[in-house]
Structures are given as C-alpha cells and as structure tokens.
C-alpha cells in the first residue's frame, strides 16, 4: 500500500518563499481535498510533488513509501507512481493521444527492463479502448493531437484518461474542476470515482465545494499563505462553502 508523506516542506521560486512548512500524509485508498484561496501555494505544492524543475526546496522532504523522491526527476517520479492532472494541460502539436500514451507506457516498461520492446500495438489498442470505454469517451479521441484544439472539458478528460492508462498510486488533481460546466464536471468526477480503489490515493486541489459533491473526500485541508491551517472531514468543506475563507483567515491572522 502506497503512502505519500510531505514533511515540513518549504519551497521557493526566485527567492520568494511560497510553501512555508507543509505537512500532509496521504495513504492509498484515501481521498483528500486541498482547498484555499488563490495564491496560497496549492498549485505550487502539486508541481513540487510532480518534480517541476523551477522550484527550490529549501527545507523538508517528500516521501513516497518512506523514501525521499526529491532527487528524482519528473519522469522517474511518474514511473514510481505519482500522477499530476494539470490545471492547464499544454497542447503537444503533432503528437496523438494514442502515440503519447503508448510512449509513456513503453517508457515504464523500458525502465523496468531495458531490453523491453514495449507493448505490442494491438494489445495497446485494446487497452486504450477499454480505458476510453471506462470513461465513456469516443474512440476518435485517441487519434487527435494531444490537447490541441481541445475544449476545457476535453482537456480534463484527456488528463483523466492518462491517469486511467498509467495507473498511478498517488494522483494529484490540480483544479480539475476549473473551467468545467456541470456536465463535464460530473463526467470527470465519475471518471475519478471509477478509478478510485484501495491502491490509489488522491489529492483534489480546488477552490470550490462543487467537485467535492461528486468526489466525496475523506479528508479536507485548508491552505492559507503556504501552510495547511485546518484539516478535517468532508464537513469542513461544507462549512467553508457556507462561511467563506474569511473566518479561517481571521482565526489564523495572529
């Protein structure tokens, strides 16, 4: 069973400290929500876990199954089981969804066994179709250039499709709900719920209660100014929805 543990994490970018001592532990099988107003460091946390090279970790550690991942590159972390669903996935011109996912799967197989020839194409096609069916996606999607000309909803679904195909043990969904209408939100949330199980831990980063109505979190954390200031169960999100961040901000102003 996988565990992601963030210990007293301090992170800077261009000498600006953004995360000021974050502590958080996620076990496989758990759904966590991280909420907070804009600019409090939620996306930074997701990028740092995924291994974005622009951030400097000045203190603390991130451990996956008890081992630090700080020295690992983004690709290595992914192969170790971490997945980030991007808030703004970039378009990769000329690279089809299918080609991209096959490359990613084969990179995993080659990391295990340098002699691996990768997954045979027919087997990969079956796998991808099964995953698209699971997420109720049109098979034509596989042939489109990745994220190019995708609507907001399509981009987010493409992220979930990648998650379904790569089968991570820890998934971070960075504002996957932003820019989605209610139908797209439902579809994406159902996708996440379908993938949820004992071997997957999820961290849902969001501003709003909305997505949490679909993905019922086991734990809710509130981040203010680079720190997690409150943690609780699902009721904490409802409380926020009712009263806003102001009360929490006042409480922690001192």
């Amino acid at each position, binding site marked *: 069973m996988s565990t992601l543990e963030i210990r007293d994490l301090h992170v800077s970018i261009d000498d600006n400290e953004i995360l000021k001592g974050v502590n958080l532990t996620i076990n496989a099988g758990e759904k966590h929500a991280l909420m907070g107003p804009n600019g409090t460091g939620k996306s930074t946390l997701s990028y740092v876990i*995924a*291994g*974005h*090279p622009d951030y400097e970790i000045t203190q603390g550690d991130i451990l996956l199954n008890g081992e630090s991942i700080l020295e690992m*590159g*983004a*690709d290595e*972390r*992914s*192969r170790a089981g971490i*997945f*980030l669903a*991007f808030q703004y*996935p*970039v378009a*990769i*011109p*000329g*690279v089809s969804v299918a*080609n*991209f*996912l096959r*490359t*990613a799967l084969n*990179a*995993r197989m080659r*990391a295990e066994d340098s002699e691996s020839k990768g997954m045979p194409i027919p087997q990969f096609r079956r796998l991808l179709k099964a995953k698209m069916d699971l997420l109720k996606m049109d098979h034509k999607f596989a042939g489109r*250039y990745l994220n190019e000309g995708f609507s907001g909803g399509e981009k987010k679904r493409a992220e979930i499709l*990648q998650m379904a195909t*790569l089968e991570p043990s820890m998934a971070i969904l960075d504002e996957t709900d932003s820019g989605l209408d209610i139908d797209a939100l439902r579809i994406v949330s159902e996708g996440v719920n379908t993938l949820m199980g004992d071997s997957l831990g999820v961290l849902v980063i969001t501003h709003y209660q909305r997505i949490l109505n679909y993905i019922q979190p086991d734990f809710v954390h509130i981040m203010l100014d680079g720190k997690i200031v409150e943690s609780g169960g699902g009721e904490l999100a409802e409380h926020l929805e009712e009263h806003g961040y102001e009360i929490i901000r006042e409480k922690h102003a001192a």
Partner: protein
Amino acid sequence: MAAPVVKRVVRGARKAADLTLTQADIKALSEKMNDAAWYAAHREKAWAMYQETPMPTTQDEPWRRTDIRAFDWNGVAHSALNGTNGSSKVPAHLLQPLAGDSHGGQLVIENGVVIDHAVSDEIKAQGVIFTDFLSATRDHADLVQKHLESAVKLDEGKFSMMAAALVDQGVFVYVPAGVKVEQPLHAVTWSDGQAHFSRVLVVAEDGAEVTVVNELSSPATEDQPLHCGTVETIVGNEADVKFISLQTLGENVWHFTHERSVIGKDANLDWIFASLGTRFTKNFTELDLAGQGAFGRMSGFYFAERDQFMDHDTQQNHLAPDTESDLLFKGALVDNSRSVWQGMIYCAKEAQRIDGFQANRNMILSKKARADSIPGLEILADDVACTHAATIGQLEDEHLFYLMSRGIPYDEARRVIVEGFYDPILQRIPFEGVQLRLKAFIREKIE
C-alpha cells in the same frame, strides 16, 4: 623579452573564384559522354554563357544570406572528365521501394554509370520512357529537345548554366498523353566523386498520371565534393504527377540546384521535397501554375545539423486564373546549423481567383542554430486569396515537463516533440514508405 616574430605574407594575384575548366575540357567531356551532336552544341552554348556570368555574391538578392566564398571553385575536378569518381557502392537500403510495394521501373546510376535499368514490359508497352538523361539526349532527342529548359531556363542563373554545360548524369521520364502509370518509377543516383552535374527531366503529357521517386545520394567523404543540377517537371493539361525528391548527399557536399515544375490546365502536382544531406545547399525551387485550374502542392522537409547551411528559395508563380498552390516547408535545426527560407508567391495580373498558401516552420533545438524565414507576396491581380506564415520556435520547457510528468525520459520527450513538429508535413506525404524513411531519419538525428 624576445621580439615578436612578424610574418610577412606575400599573396600572388588571386585567381577568380570559379571553375578552371576550359573550352577544350567541355569538348573532351562531350566526347567522353558520347553526346548527340545537338547536346554537344548545347554544352558549348551553355559554357559560353556560363563564362560570361559572374559567380553570385551576397550583393545579389537571392544570395544575400548565403555566402559561397568558402567553396574552393578552383579546386573542382570534374569527376567524369578527370576520373575522380569514387568507388563506393550504392547502399542496398536506397533501392527499397518507397512508394508502394514495388517499382514500375528502377534506374540506378552509380558514380556516373547506369548499373541497373529495369522497366516493366507493361509500362514500356504504354510508351513510357524511363532512362538516364544522357541516353535520352541520344535516343529520344526530339522529346528531350522539345521539353528541356522549358521549365528551368538555361539563363536562370550561373548554376543552371553550369549543370547544362557539365552534365554527366541524370534522369529522363516521359509519359505519353492519357497514360496512367500505376507503379512508381524509382531513380537512385549515387554520386561518389569530387564533382557531379545532373539533369532531371520529367514530362507527363496531357492526362497522364505518374509517381516518380528521385533520390540523389552520396557517401560522407573528407573532401569537399560539388553537386550541381537542374530538375524540371512538366505536368501537361489534366495530368497528375507525384514527384518525390530525396536528397541524401554526403555531409561535405556543396549542392546547388534550380528546380521548377510547370503545371498545365486542371493538372495536379504533388511534390515532396526532402533535403537531408550536404554541408551546403542552395535550391531554387519553383512552381509555375501555368494553366487555368492548375494545382500545385509542395511539402518541404529538412533537418540541419553540424555546420550545415541550407538555403531553400521557393517561388509559387500563379500565371493563370483559378490556380491553387499550397507550400509547407518544415525543418528542425541542431548544433551550429543554419537555414534560410525565402518564399515568394507571385500572382500575375490575369491570374484572378487564385489561392496561394506558403508557410515555413522551424524548430531550433540548440543555442547556436539559427533559422531565417522570409515570406513574400507579389500580387498583381485583385481577386485573390494569398496567405503566408513563418515561425521559428524552440523546444518549450513546459512541453518537456508535461511529457516527463508521464514518465517519459528527457531524451525521449525531446524526440516525441520533434516528431510531433514534423507530423503535419509527414501527413501530407501519400506514401508510407517515404514517411517511414523520414521518421527513421529524424529518430537517428535526434538521438
């Protein structure tokens, strides 16, 4: 302290930077090539014009970004004349069919000698001619005389004259009116040697259909070989020609060409132009949309590395109404390489209702590589649609991070992005064999 040593260099009178061949050499070449009388006379005429024409300099607009002073013209020995042909054999993989599963005809010229010439009986029976250029000047003199230099004029430039005067090899294709050649014709010219000059002439008469694959290749050698040539495709009214040119010359070759296709009424030309080898390349590549309703598509593919310099000068000449042209040139650059693309859409006064498109897209993969991209329009008609685009991009860190965040290692992520960059141009190529060849090429270069 020792006094500095002062070296005094006395230079002799500098020879003009040009070939040192003489009139007698041209005569000797004519004999050696067993020229038909008309071509022997033509060589002399071309040589006379050549001698009166100065070597281009960076003062000339088409050469403004392209400096050829580093080339040692005085040192050029004509391979056919001086016996400076190399002895390497044409690699077997070049002989694989690229368009479809088999050839309708294959012509292999190795170091100036035709070593394989096979044309199916079916095609011969249709009156199709597929042979080497010099044989054609003797055996099909009327046809060659009628069409030669109808697309690339003799006085086009210094290098069209050079190729006409010094030609030692080439390809001739003739498809009679209404004949549809099902299987592609595949010509491979392997030019090991110090200097080769080639002429390619493809004629598809009215209503004819043909696919021609023309590959020009040579080994990597230590010296500084020269290749100069002309390429002409004449596409008759309502004819349909697919022309695939692959240039895979050795890494020190200096390569100069003038190439043009003249496209007749309601005719189609699909020209795939892959520029993969050489140290230095200057191509003038033009489409003349000469007949009403003509359509020309040109897909250019290049990849520059090391100190390579590639200059692709393209022109789409809309000379008749209701014509359409679609040009896309794409290239990636690594190391210290440099590319220049200058494109022009010309639209004559009477060429109304035309649709012209040109785009050049570059991806720079190293700090020292550089691409210049200069699109141009010259429109004299008033009811036209012309668009052009030029982009020079880099590998984006955010793209790399996105791919890596899915477990793809850096080198592979880079390759996937470069392959993706080329994908739109590969999708325009209607032959899987050519696509696979170019994909393999990208993969080899990027790793």
